[in-house]
Each structure stands twice: as structure tokens, then as C-alpha cells.
């Protein structure tokens, strides 16, 4: 045993030293700037390509940008651990939902108001800029956007329903609960997905810029009743929906229509012919369903040693040329509005459908208080769907809980 241990140690030490050496070697004399992202697959390949292009563009300046992929699950923790301690990236990419929190916590994000010229911001739709703005201050440039839309199985559904009445009619015809077939499937008990109906009804989660919880409003209750009708009376939805269940159902041809975002496309199996359309108009209201849109932003970290160069970099990443690569090769929905006039984008029905959905989508608020909302809202939605509490009681409970937590945060000032 002792001998074996000895060999093992020797081998391992040799390996370690070899690898550490190789890393030391890799570091050149150029100054390295780091950009963090959470991409994989073709998105990652496309992103690395545009970073390489930028490095060629600034060759001779004595610095270069290096991308680092970080798994989504660890991303926010890694940012919160590294940047306030002077480590971490120069630039990073993240959706706007954490923006408020990082700003309130401080020492994380650099405001870019000072660098950004109004002319440069014209390349983005206003709703995307608003996602990057907190307390009237701009903290990042929008890179791309995502939101759920209607994805349907072409074999089962001929043309996309335009109204919810149509949708339910189609869905009812395709539902056979005993066989485990459903006309419609989406994560209706997840507040994020419920937002599509909520926003159409004019509902909200917060008032006064995130300072007051507004769960029990007439609008919110109406939106819940509307959703419950689909589930309880029309019976077109499966029980206990989760993203993996919805993918399974859709891939097996057992869910004809799903509400989901571009993130789902990679999971759809190759045998399924699908098409995408904007979510339908709610017949009772005459208003379209309006899902929450999440916007990925390019942020400059407080710990960056060269913020001006970082700004130049993120400006480059939102240019039309880069947007085209990211849209075409990375399958993203670029924030640069001009790129959508390009032929390649126009000829991409998937992208154009999401673009169409953007018109009705509502930018998800970026208040720091948003993180307080998810857990109580999920509890409330589950209670409502399971029928263990009335919508009003469940939402009231959630509102009380959120208000208490807001107060606890406010008190600490």
C-alpha cells in the first residue's frame, strides 16, 4: 500500500507540474482582458469568433480579450464573489434580472452613461435600453433578447392560432388526457411563463419601482382565473408542468403547442417539424399575450483595469457586423435593430417570429426586489393550481411575504 501510494504521488505531482507549466507558458506578454459568458455549443463558437475578430482589429494595442465560459448555475455566485474583491472579468454577459441586485450591492457594475453617446444607443430598441437602465443610469449595452413565444408541431397544427379562442379550439381537439396527449403545454405554474397572460391583463408584480408588492390586484386575479380556465375547464394542459416534461411531450408529439423560448430549440428532436409564431391575442380582451422579455446585457466590471477599452469592446459587440454573426451562427436574437433588415435574418422564420413577439413582449423589471418575488409567487401558483387555496388567498399570502421581505431590506438602510 505504501509503495503504491508513493507511485501515485509521484505520478500525480509530475502531472500537476506539467500542467501548471503549460499554463504559465500560455501567458504571453500581451495584457489580457477577460470576458465571461455562459454560452455553449454554436452560441459559444460564434461568440469566440467575434472576440477573435475584435482582437485582430485592435492588434498592436498590446492587449487582447479572452472569453471564459462559466456554467449558468455558478455564474452569479462567481460574479458576486470575484468582482467586489478586485478579481474577475473586465466585461461580462448576463440577463437583466440580476442588474438591480448587483447595483444595490455595489462594487460590481460600472455605469456607462459617461461613455455612451446618444447616437450609439440609437441602434437599440428603447425597451432593451430600459432593461439596462437602473435609477436612470445606464449600466450596460443590450446584447440580445429572449422571450417565450408559441412553438407548434407542424404535423398536428396547420396554421398558428391567432386568438386564444382559436388556440383552445385547436388544443381541445388534440387533447386526450388518458392517452397523455395535450393540445397545449407550458409552465403555467411558473410565474415567469404566466407573465404572458398577466401582462396582457395589465397585471404587475410590483408598484412604485419595486418598492411595493402588488400581487393581489384585480388584474392579477383576472389573469389567474383566465389561466385556471384552460387548466380546469378546458383541460388542455398537463399536470405538474416542468421544462423537461414539456420537452418530452413536444418531442414525442404529445404536446401540439408549447409556449417556450429560443432556449428550447436545441432540445427539440430532429424528427419534429416545428414552427414558431407570436403568442395569440386574448379573445376576451382583444389584447395579445405579452410575455416577459429577458435581455442579455454586456456589462463592464468595476474591477476592470481598462474601462475605456472595455467599452470599446462592448460597443463593437453590439455593432451590426457582430450582430449578424451572433444572429446567424450563434442563433441569438441580436439587440442591434438594423441587423434585422439584413436578408439572412429576414429569411430566418424562427428569428423573425421571435422578433415579432418582441413587439408585444414586456421587458422584465430589473429591480433588486425581483428576487424576493419568485419563491412566494411559485408557492402561490402551485397552491392555486393544486386547488389548495383560492387565488386571492394564495396571492395575498405571497404579497404579505414579499412585503415583509422588502421591509426587511429597507430597514437595513
Amino acid at each position, binding site marked *: 500500500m505504501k509503495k503504491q501510494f508513493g507511485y501515485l504521488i509521484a505520478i500525480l505531482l509530475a502531472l500537476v507540474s506539467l500542467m501548471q507549466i503549460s499554463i504559465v507558458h500560455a501567458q504571453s506578454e500581451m495584457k489580457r482582458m477577460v470576458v465571461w459568458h455562459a454560452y455553449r455549443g454554436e452560441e459559444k463558437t460564434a461568440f469566440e469568433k467575434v472576440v477573435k475578430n475584435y482582437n485582430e482589429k485592435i492588434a498592436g494595442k498590446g492587449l487582447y480579450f479572452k472569453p471564459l465560459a462559466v456554467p449558468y448555475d455558478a455564474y452569479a455566485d462567481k460574479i458576486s464573489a470575484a468582482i467586489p474583491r478586485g478579481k474577475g472579468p473586465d466585461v461580462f454577459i448576463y440577463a437583466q434580472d440580476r442588474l438591480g441586485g448587483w447595483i444595490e450591492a455595489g462594487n460590481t457594475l460600472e455605469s456607462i452613461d*459617461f461613455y455612451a453617446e446618444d447616437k450609439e444607443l440609437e441602434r437599440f430598441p428603447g425597451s432593451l435600453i430600459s432593461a439596462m437602465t437602473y435609477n436612470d443610469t445606464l449600466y450596460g449595452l443590450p446584447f440580445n433578447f429572449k422571450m417565450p413565444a408559441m412553438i407548434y408541431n407542424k404535423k398536428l397544427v396547420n396554421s398558428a392560432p391567432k386568438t386564444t379562442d382559436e388556440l383552445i379550439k385547436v388544443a381541445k381537439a388534440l387533447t386526450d388526457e388518458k392517452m397523455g396527449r395535450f393540445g397545449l403545454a407550458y409552465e403555467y405554474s411558473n410565474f415567469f411563463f404566466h407573465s404572458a397572460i398577466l401582462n396582457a391583463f395589465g397585471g404587475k408584480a410590483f408598484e412604485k419601482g419595486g418598492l411595493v408588492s402588488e400581487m393581489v390586484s384585480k388584474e392579477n386575479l383576472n389573469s389567474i382565473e383566465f389561466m385556471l380556465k384552460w387548466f380546469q375547464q378546458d383541460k388542455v394542459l398537463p399536470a*405538474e408542468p416542468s421544462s423537461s*416534461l414539456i420537452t418530452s411531450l413536444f418531442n414525442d408529439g404529445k404536446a401540439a403547442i408549447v409556449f417556450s423560448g429560443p432556449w428550447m430549440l436545441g432540445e427539440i428532436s430532429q424528427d419534429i417539424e416545428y414552427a414558431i409564431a407570436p403568442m395569440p391575442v386574448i379573445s376576451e380582451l382583444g389584447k395579445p399575450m405579452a410575455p416577459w422579455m429577458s435581455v442579455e446585457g454586456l456589462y463592464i466590471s468595476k474591477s476592470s483595469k481598462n474601462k*475605456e477599452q472595455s467599452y470599446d469592446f462592448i460597443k463593437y459587440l453590439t455593432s451590426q457586423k457582430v450582430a449578424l454573426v451572433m444572429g446567424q451562427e450563434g442563433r441569438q436574437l441580436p439587440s442591434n435593430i438594423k441587423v434585422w433588415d439584413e436578408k439572412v435574418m429576414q429569411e430566418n422564420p424562427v428569428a423573425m417570429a421571435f422578433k415579432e413577439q418582441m413587439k408585444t413582449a414586456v421587458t422584465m423589471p430589473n429591480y433588486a426586489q425581483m*428576487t424576493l418575488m419568485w419563491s412566494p409567487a411559485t408557492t402561490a401558483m*402551485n397552491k392555486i393550481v393544486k386547488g*389548495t387555496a383560492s387565488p*386571492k388567498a394564495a396571492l395575498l399570502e405571497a404579497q404579505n411575504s414579499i412585503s415583509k421581505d422588502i421591509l*426587511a431590506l*429597507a430597514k437595513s438602510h
Partner: protein
Amino acid sequence: MNFQMINSRTLSFIALFSMAYIAFLYGSNDSFIRLYQQSEMDKAVILSGSMAKKLSNISATESLQDLAINLKAKNSNVLDIKILKLSGAKIVASTHIGDMDKSFPFRLPKDQKPFFDEAKQIKAAYKKALIGQFLNPIISYEWLDNNSVNTLKVISPYTVNGRFTGVLQLNVLTEPRATQAHYFTDWLVLLVVALALLHLIEKKQLNNIRFTYFNVTKNTLNSCLYSVVFLIVSLLICFQLVQEFKAEQSTAIEAITALMRTIESGSASTQALWIDRYGQDMQRLNTLSQPVYLQSMATNLHGLMAKYAVHILFALVLMVFFISGSAARTRQAFKENRQAYMYVMPAMLGMLVLVFFPFGYGVLLSFTDTTMFNESLPFSERFIGLDNYLSILGGFNLFKELDGQTIVNYENFYWTLFITICWTVSNVVFAVGLGLLLALALNDSRIKFRWFFRVVLILPWAIPNYITALVWKGMFHQQFGVINQVIQMFGFEPIDWFGSVFTSFLTGLTTNVWLGFPFMMVVILGGLQSISTDMYEAARIDGANRWQQFKYITLPSLKPTLIPAIILSVVWTFNMFNVIYLVSAGEPAGANEILITQAYKIGFEKMQYAYAAAYSVVIFMILLVYGVFQNKVSKVTDMNS
């Protein structure tokens, strides 16, 4: 009495006394500087606030630049005035030498981005202050240290027609701080007094009394005597320092009052002329009640006194440790057991650094009200004492009223604790039970393909539990889950697993037992190898039956390895985060949360870091009590063959 003993004891007394004295000075120096800085800052804030008010009331015809020059001329301690209009990032007035020849307004140069950002932040704070919630200071200040000339930079907002327009930056020269330098003599005098006192006590041969009247050892009495002397002297020092602190404080308050008076006398307006850092109007001078101000200053004094208390306590402990001979005994013990300590030391060292530092951090955090919003404030401003603990342990609202119904409040600590205990006990019982049975079966050489069974049975441990936990969750799905399919196969109704507290509890339990029994099996297999076959032979000859063999040979022999495994697995299960999070997610309605998932939610979803830390400390205390108790009962640490 041994002369040498006294000598070394006196020496250590002198050393510790000096150390304590230096610690006092160092600690109080900090407080003195803070007092000085605060009063200087207050003065600068008042000055800047009054100027910003003037700026806001300026008529359209007046030039901002003239006003700035005028203001600078009036206040000799103002080095520079800069006025930034936020829209367009324009400097509208500046008395800075380099700026004087430029034509106003001009765009802020690129290298001054921080100024712009700060103005932006002030705007955000100003807007929030208007709503009346989330109070952030709207006047920011910062010390500029240019080669010992103390300059203070203050930035305050100014408005036009009640609307936030821009900021005014003042660079204020502060009054230098009077230095104190009489401490060496103080130290010497006090030390001599202390030594004299001690000498007197020794001389009087008080030591002899104890043998007749008190049943205490020499060392204890000595350390008592030394401690009392030390305490007396320490209190003397503290008293003196506190007096000095109070004197400086009242000087500072006078200076501030004087400044306010000057500003008021120069104005005919009836409006308040100054605002505090948070944008609240300070009361006018004639109604300015000093006690209010004194109160805020008093917290400084309390901080100082608390510091002294900690120092004295720490020094006392050290003193008792040395004087009573504990130090010598420790040294002796180390010498005698050098080898044992060397064996233990490396592992212990890693433990101390990597576990107990974070632990200490957590404990400190738990005494504050730190949340995401005030993380960057200094510790003393966040300190709230035991409030978090009182709120956790004192929350007996097990039921709550909602919409006319009374329901169990699942967020309550005691409910969660109850679930956690059920969770831990059931998990450990099942995992150990299954592990034991399997290990015993697999230790039987008559079973064929034992290697195969052993390998297959550790698979649940080997595969990343993230995916298997999700597979289990899928198996419990109401419509498509395998388990309900089986139930239907036998003609029963499907169960809504995540719908009720008990069934949802079972989902987590099943998953975790499935994940946990392989580890127990391996541990017990290892433990079984220590039992020699001879013992069973002997038992059989004595006519012991199977159960007796198990009870009198197997179990006792397994105890040394099994008990630690059980204790640790109780600890791990108590803090098992993944399974709950991934499988039942606390459903229904958070009823199946355990303490650790609750702490996680509080910390990472509600962003109340300190409260979550207090939760963790409570978890720790519960486990500590359990660990000590279990250790007492099973006596594992003391067992030896």
C-alpha cells in the same frame, strides 16, 4: 515562595499590561480619529448643503460662475468649487485653476468619469429620498489625502425649480487634528502603581491566608490577585480616555453649532438652510436641540467603551492563562506529547484556516443586519446584536390567519426544525438499516457474484446526484411518473405526490435513502473486516445463536466505525441541501423545507445575508448539542481496545 516564580510572573504581568495598554491606545486612537473626521465631515456637509441651497434659489440672471467665485471668497477653507450639470455632463462653474480660463459650460473631460458617476448615484439617492424609502446618503464625502494636507471632497445635489439638476462639489480644507503625546509617562506611572500594589500584596504574605481560610490553590489565588490589580489599573486608564473623548466631543459640537450660527446670520430666509446627509432638513438653529445631536455622538462613545470592555476581557483571559500556570502546563504538555501533536497538527491547521475562519465570519455576520443593500457599510454601522437570533428563536407564530382561515405557518422556525428532525432521523435510520443488512449479506462468502452486487450497489453514490435526483422527481410525477403507473397497474388511484406534506416528504426521503445507503454499506463492509472469524467460532462453540452472535460480537465490533459514520451522516443529512431543493423543492407551500434550504432562501433569494448567517449558526448550535450529547452517550472518543 520561589523568587524565580514571582519574577517570571511579574515579567509576564508587565508584558501583558503593556500590551493591553497599547491595545487601548490603538483602539481608542481609532475612535478619536473617527470623532474628529465625523465632526469635520459634518461641518463640510453643512457648508456644502447651505451652498447648494443658495444655488437652488439663484435667479435666472445671476451667473453660476460668479456665485461660485463669491462663495469661495467668503469661505477661506474652501479650496475649490465645481458645479456639474448632469444633462450633457457639463461643468457650469468651477473655481479650479485649470478651468478658470475655459468658457462655461464645457463637457466634463473623460478622465473625470468618477465624478460623473458619483453625481449619477447622488441623483438616484435623491430620487429615493423623495419617495421616503431606501435612504441612501445624498451628500457624499471622501477624504483626499494630498501629502498630509487634509482635504475633504463633498458632493451635494442642487435643484432648479425643485428638480434635480446637478451637483456641487466642494474641496474643503479641514482643521488639523490636535495630537496627543503624553501617553508614555501615563503608562510608566500606571505600571509603577500596579507593581507597587502587587508588591504590597506579596509583602503582606496574603498568600498564607488562603491555606487556612480558603480551599483554593496558590495559582488560582495569584491569578485572582493579579487580575484584580490589572482591572483596577485598566479602569483607571479607561476613565481617563473616556473623559478626554467627551471633552473632544463637546468641542466638536460647539464648532458645528458655531458654524450653523454663522451661516444663519448671513441669511434672511426662514427656510432651513442646511440638510443632513440623507437630505432631511435639519432643524433651525433656534430650535436645534443639542441632545439629539449629542445622542448620535453618544453612539461613538458607546462604541469606544465597548471596545475597552472587549480589550479588558481579552487581556484578563490572557493574564489568567499565564499567571495561573496554564500556559506553562500547555507548554509542558506539548513537550511531553510532541509526537502526538505533530501527527495531528497538519490536518488541524487546514481545519482551522479553512473551516473556522469562514465560521467566525458567519458568526460575526449573524450579529449584524447585513443585506444586499448595506453590504458596503462599515461593520459598526451594521451591528445589531442578538436581534436576528431573537427573531428566529422567538418566533412562535406557528399558525397564521389568511383570508379567514387558520393555516400552519410553514416559514416558522420550529415547524422547519420539526421537519428537519423527522427528515434526519428517518433518513439515517433507513440508510444505516439498509446499509447494515446489505453489508452483512454481502460479507457472506456463500453469496455468489458478491463483487458484482457490491459494485452495482454503490452506483447510486457514484453517479452525480443532480441527474438521479431529477430522475426520481420525474418518477414521482402525477401523470407520467413511473410510480403512479405502478400504482395504477395494481388498480389503485394515482397519488399526487407533491400535493400533501407527508407524501412530499416521502419523495425526498426515498431519494435520499437511495442516494445514502451505499455509503453506509461501504463503511460497514470496512468495519466488518476488523472482526476476526475466531470470535464467531468461539461463540458458536459456546452455543450462541445467530441473534446473540450479532448482538454480542458484530454490533460491538462495528461500533467504533459505525458510530462516527452515524454521527457524521446525521450532520450531513441535517444539512442536505441538494435533494430537497431538486426533488420536492419544499412542496407543498414550503412545508417540506428543512433548515438549510430555508437559510439558503433567506440568504440568496431574500438577500438577508445576516439573517441567513444567524440561521446557520442556529443550525450549528443544534448539531453541536447533538454531537456532544451523542459523544457522551457512545463514548467514541474515549474508546480503545
